[in-house]
């Protein structure tokens, strides 16, 4: 049995999904956490639950919302679970009515009853249920209360009857529904009533669907005739407003009979917090202070010491233990070198940075779950508007600090295609966590006293370059007038420890997993390339295949300050995954741990060349996984190639300027 989970944004769909399925999806407190449908198996029983992006209405404005309409039109499922926010019933019921019109079995989960009662709203659940003609189950998805009963109910009930609740849109509409039904001649299995209403509301997906059955002109005539008939009889400006108001009337009636609101003039805590966080003058400084703390904790106060401890463990007991074991079983010197110089150096060199990456992911999860992310969008909107974007584009960029792949996908929540394309193209400039090990290594070697500041400068450089390019692109290749910004600011929520940890783990486990698979295999390959050469096996590193390959790029990189085959080879592997740069360097420089690698690096890079190298790594190309995502999101080879091409150009230019001017100034 397939159950579709539907509801407004920020109503706790994803929390509910996690609670019901026991699996873990990513929860955030901003609109657009889920941009693609996700399927999970219910804890008990054989039903699967399909999590869909949050929508206010079935008539989509943005691409993630379109996923829901397309799902309803083209996918098969057995029943719908509609989650509604008890504290915002009026707004939520608009979607519920549209789902009831769709005409499939529906069960309602009434979420956040605790929040509603705190705001003085008491809901008579039984009366609401009897009026809507559906089962209504009160739950608190965040804590999981009521979720077991809901799961029980959703799966065990044999076949929930289809509700007979209808909104009356007048006889003109009824006539129109009959007319469309005649035009369709029974060729569709969807409710004609629902199709008619969605079509008249201006739903493009439904229109395109209907055009596969009815001629374009015939359909246009139908829309025009119906609109004329209705607008001449009622005092309404547009047909979608007419439909909206009819629904609004029906909802008003429903609520009068089933809810009691106590007027309370207490200012909600969320508004008190907002009085400070989004304060006219404090908003931006607070954002910068939060970012500063995030970086200091990740790179200086907490992250570095933890990574050092881990480095000590990997290079000490683990390497020693492996060495002893290999000698004990009498492994050949080839195996010895492969394991210690290839795998331990390559994989261990990446794993060392797990603490720092987890701290970063923890803070990103904290910002998302608390509701601060939407405020950042508000605070940044003015700046973003100047460069041809809107504040919402800042959210994918912040997500991109963790990993560019979900960042690029989060751009789907941006309504206008032009701004969405810009965001997809520029999000890869955000310094993702996989680039972090490279910085950590280099600042540890060259900029010991200003570690966090140097890293912060790279993150800021990424943002500044993105903003400048946004301005350039939006006035040249991606011109257009429309910029759009309306954002819902959900109430603040106290993040829950368990959810926070799971969210951090979900994001971070990809890094650990990649180290065990991709980086592992890559390390073996890189080591083999460095072990073998045209003259045979066990050659001098400088005569190896790897040196030959890297050497091709060395002359090109010389003006940037790092014209060595080692740099060339590691940048090449960096395209596959940015952290592979570290694995490659560890293998090339043939050292057991981070500290001795740093010692060696000082001999091959000058400080300004090191900075130039870090800038190049920051910008030079989106990693393979990001490129694949950009291709999927833009659906265009042209734009995908462009995203790689412009990055390479900008990276080369900036590194060149930094190195040449830096050397000139005598650094």
């Amino acid at each position, binding site marked *: 049995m397939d159950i579709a989970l539907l509801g407004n944004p920020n109503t706790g769909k994803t929390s509910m999904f996690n609670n019901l399925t026991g699996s873990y999806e990513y929860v955030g407190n901003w609109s657009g956490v889920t941009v693609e449908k996700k399927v999970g198996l219910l804890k008990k029983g054989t039903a699967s639950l399909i999590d869909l992006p949050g929508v206010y209405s079935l008539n989509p404005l943005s691409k993630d919302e379109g996923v829901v309409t397309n799902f309803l039109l083209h996918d098969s499922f057995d029943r719908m679970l509609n989650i509604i926010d008890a504290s915002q019933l009026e707004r939520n019921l608009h979607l519920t009515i549209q789902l009831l019109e769709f005409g499939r079995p529906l069960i309602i989960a009434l979420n956040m009853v605790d929040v509603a009662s705190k705001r003085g709203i008491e809901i008579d659940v039984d009366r609401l249920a009897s009026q809507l003609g559906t089962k209504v189950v009160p739950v608190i998805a965040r804590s999981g209360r009521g979720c077991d009963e809901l799961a029980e109910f959703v799966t065990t009930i044999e076949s929930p009857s289809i509700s007979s609740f209808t909104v009356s849109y007048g006889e003109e509409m009824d006539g129109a529904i009959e007319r469309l039904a005649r035009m369709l001649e029974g060729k569709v299995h969807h409710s004609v009533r629902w199709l008619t209403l969605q079509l008249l509301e201006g739903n493009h997906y439904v229109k395109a669907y209907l055009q596969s059955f009815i001629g374009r002109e015939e359909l246009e005539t139908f829309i025009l005739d119906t609109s004329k008939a209705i607008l001449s009889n009622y005092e309404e400006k547009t047909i979608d407003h007419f439909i909206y108001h009819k629904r609004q009337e029906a909802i008003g009636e429903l609520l009068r009979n089933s809810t009691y609101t106590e007027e309370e003039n207490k200012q909600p805590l969320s508004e008190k917090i907002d009085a400070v966080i989004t304060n*006219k003058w404090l908003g931006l400084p607070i954002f910068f202070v939060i970012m500063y703390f995030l970086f200091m904790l990740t790179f200086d106060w907490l992250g570095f010491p933890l990574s050092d401890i881990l480095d000590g463990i990997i290079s000490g007991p683990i390497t020693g233990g492996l060495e002893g074991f290999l000698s004990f079983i009498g492994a050949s010197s080839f195996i010895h070198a492969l394991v210690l110089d290839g795998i331990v150096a390559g994989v261990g060199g990446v794993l060392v940075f797990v603490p720092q990456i987890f701290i970063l992911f923890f803070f990103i999860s904290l910002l998302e779950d608390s509701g601060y992310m939407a405020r950042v969008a508000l605070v940044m909107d003015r700046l973003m508007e100047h460069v041809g974007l809107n504040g919402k584009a800042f959210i994918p960029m912040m997500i991109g600090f963790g990993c560019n792949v979900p960042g690029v996908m989060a751009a789907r929540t941006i309504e206008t295609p032009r701004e969405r394309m810009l965001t997809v193209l520029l999000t890869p400039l955000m310094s993702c966590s996989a680039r972090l090990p490279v910085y950590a290594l280099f600042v540890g070697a060259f900029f010991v006293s200003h570690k966090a500041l140097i890293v912060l400068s790279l993150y800021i450089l990424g943002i500044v370059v993105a903003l400048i390019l946004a301005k350039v692109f939006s006035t040249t290749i991606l011109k257009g007038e429309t910029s759009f910004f*309306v954002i819902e600011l959900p109430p603040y929520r106290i993040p829950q420890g368990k959810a926070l940890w799971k969210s951090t783990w979900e994001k971070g486990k990809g890094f650990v997993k990649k180290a065990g698979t991709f980086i592992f295999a890559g390390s073996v390959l890189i080591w083999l390339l460095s072990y073998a050469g045209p003259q045979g096996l066990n050659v001098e590193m400088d005569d190896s295949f790897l040196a030959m390959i890297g050497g091709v790029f060395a002359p090109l990189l010389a003006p940037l300050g790092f014209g060595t085959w080692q740099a060339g080879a590691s940048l090449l592997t960096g395209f596959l995954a940015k952290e592979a740069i570290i694995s490659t360097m560890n293998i090339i420089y043939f050292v057991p741990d981070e500290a001795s690698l740093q010692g060696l690096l000082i001999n091959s890079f000058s400080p300004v060349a090191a900075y130039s190298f870090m800038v190049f790594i920051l910008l030079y190309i989106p990693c393979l996984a990001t490129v694949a995502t950009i291709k999927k999101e833009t659906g265009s080879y042209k734009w995908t190639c462009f995203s790689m091409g412009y990055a390479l150009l900008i990276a080369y230019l900036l590194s060149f300027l930094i190195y040449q001017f830096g050397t000139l100034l005598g650094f």
Partner: protein
Amino acid sequence: MLAGLRIGKRAKIIDTSGADRLVRRRLLDLGITEGSEVCIKCKMPFGGPFMLESCGQCVGIRRREAQTIKVEEL
């Protein structure tokens, strides 16, 4: 106009037809339309966006849009 409303004062929206089509649609999704009561919570500096409150929910919109929405102070 909504943009002229002082912070903390409540007002009723009387006409949104001057606003951008997409903005109107999104505000409608959020339940903000003719007849809704709104209150401006804060205005971002340098011509930045406004934070509105309506029926207990907060929404951010641009100043430019606020200048096209007619309201009546309560």
